[in-house]
C-alpha cells in the first residue's frame, strides 16, 4: 500500500553541498526528518552537479520517512552561468550588463524542458528569454522564428 504523504518541502540547494545549517536543518528537523540522511542522499545524487543550485521537492510520509525529486536548475541560475556574470544588472530594465546568444537560450530551454509546462522547445525558449531580459541580460543574434 502506498504510504500516506503528510506534506512537502521545497528547497533549492547547491549540488553536493547540502548540510544541516539553516534553512535545511531547521526545515527538516521541525518535521521530524533525519537531516543527516537527507544530506547524504542529496549529496550523493548531485555530486555530478557540484555547486549548481538545484530545486528539490521532498515528500514527507506520516511515518517520518521521506523521498525526494531533484529538478533542473532554475533558468536564472543557468543564464548567469551562460553569461559568465557574477551578478545580473544593477538596473535590469535600463542597463544591459551582459548577454546570452539564442543558441545558449536554446540549450537552457532544452535542459529546462522536463520541468516546464511548454509543448515545444520554442515556447520554452521564449520563457527563458523573458527571464534573461528581467535579469538585464540582452539576448543577441536572431531568434529562430525571425526568418
Amino acid at each position: 500500500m502506498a504510504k500516506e504523504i503528510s506534506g512537502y518541502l521545497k528547497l533549492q540547494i547547491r549540488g553536493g553541498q547540502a548540510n544541516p545549517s539553516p534553512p535545511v536543518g531547521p526545515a527538516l528537523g521541525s518535521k521530524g526528518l533525519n537531516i543527516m540522511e537527507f544530506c547524504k542522499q542529496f549529496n550523493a545524487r548531485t555530486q555530478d552537479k557540484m555547486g549548481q543550485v538545484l530545486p528539490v521537492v521532498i515528500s514527507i510520509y506520516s511515518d517520518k520517512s521521506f523521498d525526494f525529486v531533484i529538478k533542473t536548475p532554475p533558468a536564472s541560475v543557468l543564464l548567469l552561468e551562460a553569461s559568465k556574470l557574477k551578478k545580473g544588472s544593477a538596473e535590469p530594465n535600463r542597463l544591459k550588463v551582459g548577454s546570452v546568444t539564442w543558441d545558449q537560450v536554446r540549450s537552457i530551454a532544452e535542459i529546462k524542458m522536463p520541468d516546464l509546462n511548454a509543448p515545444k522547445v520554442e515556447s520554452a525558449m521564449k520563457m527563458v528569454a523573458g527571464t534573461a531580459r528581467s535579469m538585464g541580460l540582452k539576448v543577441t543574434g536572431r531568434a529562430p522564428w525571425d526568418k
Partner: protein
Amino acid sequence: MQRVYKVLSFFCDQIITDILIAELSNIGFDSFLITENGFEASISLEHFDQKILDELIDSYSSLGSITCRSNQIREKNWNVEWEKNFQPIVIEDQCIVRAAFHKIKNKYPIELIINPKMSFGTGHHETTYLMIQNQLNTDHEHKRVLDAGCGTGILSVLAEKLGAEKIIGFDMDHWAYENSLENINLNSCHRIEIVEGKIEKISGQHTFDLILANINLNVIIEDLNSYYKLLSPGGILILSGFLVSDLNTLLNCIEDLNISLIEQNSRNKWMSVCLKKDK
C-alpha cells in the same frame, strides 16, 4: 564555538524568487527554502553583508514588490526530533547500535551507544550499516585504524571494541568532532584520538593497517592518494558513501594504484568496497 546565522525571509513572486536565488548563490548562500510567499535564505553572520543585500534588492525592485525581513538564530541540534524517536538497530546479530536513552531486552556481543546530535552515523543509513558489516568481518586485533570523516565516531568505537590497538578519527565538521568525543566517553573507549580537520592534519609518520572512509564519491576520489600513502603494505581500505551507479568511476580511479578489490557489497542503492594494498 556556536555559530550564529542571519536568516532572511523574502516576500516576492516566483520569477523574482528564482532570480534572487541565482544571485544570492553567487555571494555565499548555499541553500534556500521555498515558502508560500517567497523564500528563506541564511548565511553565517560573519559572512553577511547588508550593503550587498540592499543593492541586490534595489536592482530588482523594478520587477515587482520585494520585502525582506531578517533575524538571527544560533546553531543548535536541529535533528533532535528525529534523534529522540530513533530505534536501535541490529547488524548481523552481532552488533546493536542504540542511544543512551534506549532500554534494551536482548544482549548482543557488541553494543555501541551513539547519541548522534546532528552528526552522521547511527547504523540506520545503508552506508553505515555496510561499513559495520565489513568491519565485523575484518581482523582488527592489534591494528592501527584511521577513520576518515568519523561523524558520530561510530566506526572508531566499533574498531576499539573489535580489538584495534590505536584508532585515529578525523572530521572537518566541529559538531562531528564534539559528538565523536561524547560518544567515545559514552562507550568508555581509551584508544581513540579524534582530530578536527581534513586528511592533511593526519601525520605522515605513521601508517595504518586499516582505513575506513564513509564519506561521498567526490571526497573519496580526492583523498584516495592520501589513503593509499597512509595505508601499510597489505593493509585494508574500506570505502562507502557512494551509489552503486558510481562504482565504475571509483574503480577507474584505483587502476593505477597497487591495490586490489577483495569484496564489494550493496544495500538498496548504496555500495561499499573492501580493497587490499599489495605487499
